[in-house]
């Protein structure tokens, strides 16, 4: 028995010695579940950033970053917590790129990340509630909070002179957060919301919901749901009964399949979707294409930026530790310093090693505000001839 214990201990020690120059970064996304169609691109983009850092050979005396994937499921908080627990305790990751959906992100943050002191950078959790979550300075996101989207949507309505609307949202953290933010901003501008009604995803029939919304009335219907779930069902039911003619849509409703399925009745519908433009975005589009990734897929750019920020923060701190990421992430993301585009991570590492400062621009023009979340720019679109036409960027 004693020999066995000794042998195990020895193996563990050697294993530790070998992996001293390997730094593990967790990538926790919903590889199964409602958003499984976009997570492979997101994971791929994050790994692309880590690979770029490794290939430059300039990361902390030649240490290499090793991505470890885990499944957040997007909806099951218990499964996501267990997966994150495994990443930290058994894989020993120093930081987490993730999670994706707002609900599971909040669960991982409070149950696993904060107790273990491991920082998280989410590319896609947008719930306003996460801005005020108890995070000990460990939570960052490269996606903007929906509080901002609510304001942008309210502004658009104000410009159009719409005074009275009905609101429906998907009954989860994302839908509720966005609806609350929007209603507050809209009423702040003097608008009137006739009814705010949640809808459940995955139902066959939304005629009762539409009946109530139509009775409450309004110039148009705001839909904060998912494009292939209840959100589409609500609009379908509204078209069927002629309840509303125009719709205001949140980012979850943006998708080509929606226009393909609902056709001509969507004419004049408008909404917002987080959007990035500029030099960094163009460079990333090319970089992604060279690596078989689709930069247009939702949150692919944000994922690249999230992983790049984790690596750069470690380099700025001079050590591959959780503390270094948490302490330096805001410094590398914001001015002052040399602007860093996607594909220039090697150059950034060089500057940091020389004691200089950088301002990571990345694929989405990263600018972290408040408690460490993207300021966010949105594309205001309108449906014309069954296409999403850009009206302006806000």
């Amino acid at each position, binding site marked *: 028995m004693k020999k066995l214990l000794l042998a195990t201990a020895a193996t563990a020690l050697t294993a530790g010695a070998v992996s001293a120059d390997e730094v593990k970064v967790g990538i926790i996304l919903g590889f199964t579940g409602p958003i499984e169609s976009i997570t492979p691109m997101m994971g791929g983009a994050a790994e692309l950033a880590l690979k770029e850092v490794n290939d430059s050979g300039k990361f902390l005396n030649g240490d290499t970053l090793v991505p470890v994937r885990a499944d957040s499921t997007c909806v099951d908080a218990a499964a996501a917590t267990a997966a994150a627990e495994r990443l930290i305790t058994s894989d020993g990751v120093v930081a987490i790129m993730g999670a994706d959906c707002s609900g599971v992100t909040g669960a991982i943050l409070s149950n696993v990340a904060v107790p273990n002191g491991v920082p998280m950078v989410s590319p896609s959790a947008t719930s306003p509630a996460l801005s005020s979550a108890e995070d000990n300075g460990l939570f960052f996101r490269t996606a903007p909070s929906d509080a901002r989207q609510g304001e942008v949507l309210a502004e658009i309505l104000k410009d159009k002179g719409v005074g009275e609307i009905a609101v429906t949202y998907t009954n989860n953290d994302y839908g509720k957060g966005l609806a609350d933010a929007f209603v507050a901003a809209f009423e702040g501008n003097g608008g009137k919301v006739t009814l705010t*009604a949640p809808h459940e995803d995955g139902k*066959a029939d939304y005629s009762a919901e539409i*009946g*109530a919304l139509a009775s409450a009335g309004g110039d148009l219907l705001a839909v904060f749901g998912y494009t292939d779930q209840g959100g589409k069902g609500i609009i379908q039911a509204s078209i069927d009964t002629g309840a509303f003619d125009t719709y205001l849509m949140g980012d979850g409703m943006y998708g080509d399949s929606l226009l393909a399925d609902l056709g001509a009745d969507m004419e004049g519908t408008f909404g917002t979707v987080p959007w990035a433009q500029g030099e960094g975005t163009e460079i990333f589009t090319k970089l992604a294409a060279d690596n078989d990734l689709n930069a247009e897929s939702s949150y692919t750019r944000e994922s690249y930026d999230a992983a790049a920020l984790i690596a750069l923060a470690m380099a700025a701190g001079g050590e591959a530790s959780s503390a270094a990421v948490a302490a330096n992430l805001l410094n590398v993301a914001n001015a002052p310093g040399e602007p860093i585009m996607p594909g220039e991570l090697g150059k950034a590492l060089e500057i940091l090693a020389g004691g200089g400062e950088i301002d990571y621009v990345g694929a989405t023009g990263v600018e972290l505000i408040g408690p460490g979340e993207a300021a966010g720019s949105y594309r205001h679109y309108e449906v014309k001839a069954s296409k999403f036409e850009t009206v302006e960027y806000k």
Partner: protein
Amino acid sequence: MDFLNALVALSNFVLIPAMTYGSQLALGALGVTLVYGILRFSNFAHGDTMAFGTMSVILFTWLFQSMGISLHPLPTALLAIPFGIAATALLMLGTDRVVYRFYRAQKAKPVIVVMVSLGVMFIYNGLTRFILGAEEQRFMDGERFIIRAREFKEMTGLREGLAFKTTQGLTILTAVVVVIVLFWFLNKTRTGKSMRAFSDNEDLALLSGINPERVVMVTWIIVAALVTIAGTLYGLDKSYKPFTYFQLLLPIFAAAIVGGLGSPVGAIAGGFVIAFSEVAVTYAWKKVLVYLLPESLEPEGLVQLLATEYKFAVSFMILVIVLLIKPTGIFKGKSV
């Protein structure tokens, strides 16, 4: 004018949707009630049988579409229904041969057979997902509307629109035809009479020379036809997803029990009671009342009894009330 507007709004959001939903529930409840009356157990696999039947219809619809056969302006699925019924009937007869016949021979207590049907439910559940998957499928083609809301407004000059979908018209029409044929079959034909005799008094029916296996076989075939038609109409009118069919089990059972288990007339009445209560209780009556009432009495709020999230709770409430007050249901079925 205001009265007409109120009537149109009411038809558009309450009467037509509830009529359609009620017809779909009635067809489903008829199947439950037949199984209960003749085979004497509550068939929990009913919802998933509906999913299976609709799946077969969808597969045949796709086959016809790929062959270029269509019924324009009606949906192609109508052509596929007989084939779907055949596939479902084969499945149900197979299940009866392998599973239910064994328990019938043992004279197992109804509650045991109910648990067996729960097992069958899980098998069907898996079968449907294995063949077609768990996602939503669209198989509706042809003309979507008989009247569009916008056209109605322009035509009549009223402020309220009235939409009437092809599928809603088809559902109501088909339900009427199916019910008439079923009642003619049960009341006028020899086989139908022997089924009713078997349901009323099994021993007496056996003594008078009725072949029980034949009665059981005919029952399964009729139930297969009912579920396939009900499921297809529901899928055409709303959307097809195996999970929503499983969820339909509750309102269907509520309808059958409210009407009186074992009573076909009760199943139809129960279907409409459940559908109208679900829609009317969660409807916001403000719009209709504003048209009808004088200005001084106009309601401030939405006049909504129950938020739409609680739609499914309505079936539960009605079920509880009926079981407390009149356990045999409206039409004096068997007590549960």
